[in-house]
């Protein structure tokens, strides 16, 4: 079937098999390989992207379900080539990553979390990221990064 999906602000049009998963569409059709496939069972969150602004696990969404809708991956977050999104800056400043495999999904889940709850408590951040696993167990700095990004508008570290 033909799908037309707005990915990071640009319209992408492709002929795909009906069974194509969104994550495979992003990685293999569009070459956007920041979004990782981790567990492939909607457990780990490494494949998290925004679909119409809300976090989803793209290994458990069909490309066909995203047809006509908007997808944002971590490649589409930064406002320009020499700038980072506040969440990316916060992950950098707070050392919110070790091996980096979970990072694109973590960042997207965190962006979605702050959209729904702009000033979360630490507990709310931990609960809000319950769908994302870090295999390095580097959770403390990830949580610090999200808290820092949430206060970025108030002169916080990001």
């Amino acid at each position: 079937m033909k799908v037309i999906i707005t990915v990071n602000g640009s319209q992408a049009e492709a002929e795909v098999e009906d069974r194509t998963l969104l994550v495979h569409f992003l990685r293999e059709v569009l070459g956007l390989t920041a979004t990782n496939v981790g567990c492939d069972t909607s457990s780990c969150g490494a494949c998290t992207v925004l679909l119409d602004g809300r976090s989803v696990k793209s290994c458990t969404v069909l490309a066909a379900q995203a047809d006509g809708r908007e997808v944002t991956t971590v490649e589409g977050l930064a406002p320009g080539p020499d700038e980072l999104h506040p969440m990316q800056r916060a992950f950098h400043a707070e050392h919110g990553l070790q091996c980096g495999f979970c990072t694109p999904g973590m960042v997207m889940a965190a962006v979605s979390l702050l959209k729904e709850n702009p000033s979360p408590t630490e507990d709310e951040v931990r609960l809000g990221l319950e769908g994302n696993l870090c295999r390095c167990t580097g959770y403390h700095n990830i949580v610090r990064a999200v808290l820092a990004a949430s206060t970025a508008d108030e002169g916080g570290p990001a």
Partner: protein
Amino acid sequence: MIPAPFTYKRAGSLDEALDLAAQDGDEAKFLAGGHSLLPLMKLRLAVPEVLIDIGRVRELSYVREDDGHIAVGALTSYGDLAGSDLLATELPLLAAAAGQVGDPQVRHCGTIGGSLVHGDPAADLPAVVLALDATLVVRGPSGSREIGAGEFFHSLFETAVQPGELLTEIRIPKPQAPGWSFQKLTKRAIDWAIVGVAVQGGNVALVNMGQTPVRASAVEQALAAGAGTRDAAAHAAEGTSAPGDINGSPGYREHLARVLVARALAESAARS
């Protein structure tokens, strides 16, 4: 993991969904949020020839007060249930339980109707609607019919919904007794409950203690006869047939049921 090939169709309305289902009969399955069905398809445990995507049938996504009861559209997402002001006031048990299903990503996609029709006894919301004495409205080619939650769940992954039929609405009477609680034990957020308990007033329903969600009738009878919460909870495993798996033996689940029911009844009592 990639599902076996299938033909994807998309319905824009309830009527269109039923028309498409009538064309393909037993070969077709409805796709709502897809968070139960797609994982099974990726494991090739489900191999439908046709998927009818009903995820954009917006007319089935709502929570409203209707003639003394609360009506919930079958395609309302867990996230929308958890964030509903009406549910927070009238049915806090449903809002709280929906807010604990899976994780935020799952709650953005998964729907109450998808969970109920999937018929997994380890899922949270089947036990919740059982505890709430809900009525489920199913639409088919020859019109609508209403099924009590107690008659809806037939066996593992089997419900009263027939091929060509679609669950459209969950009708829930306003609870007479205000006390409620939802308790479950999981290892990770995304896991199914090893055991879960939904309490509303004197109604007690169990997650993952048999082939279907079950009412803890012995507990309810003990409560009705005036037993204290601790004594009533001792009956939690009676009449159940708990499964054994990597997360726990039947005996462990029976113990867990008694512990969680005791906690749930205590929390419910504190809220009433």
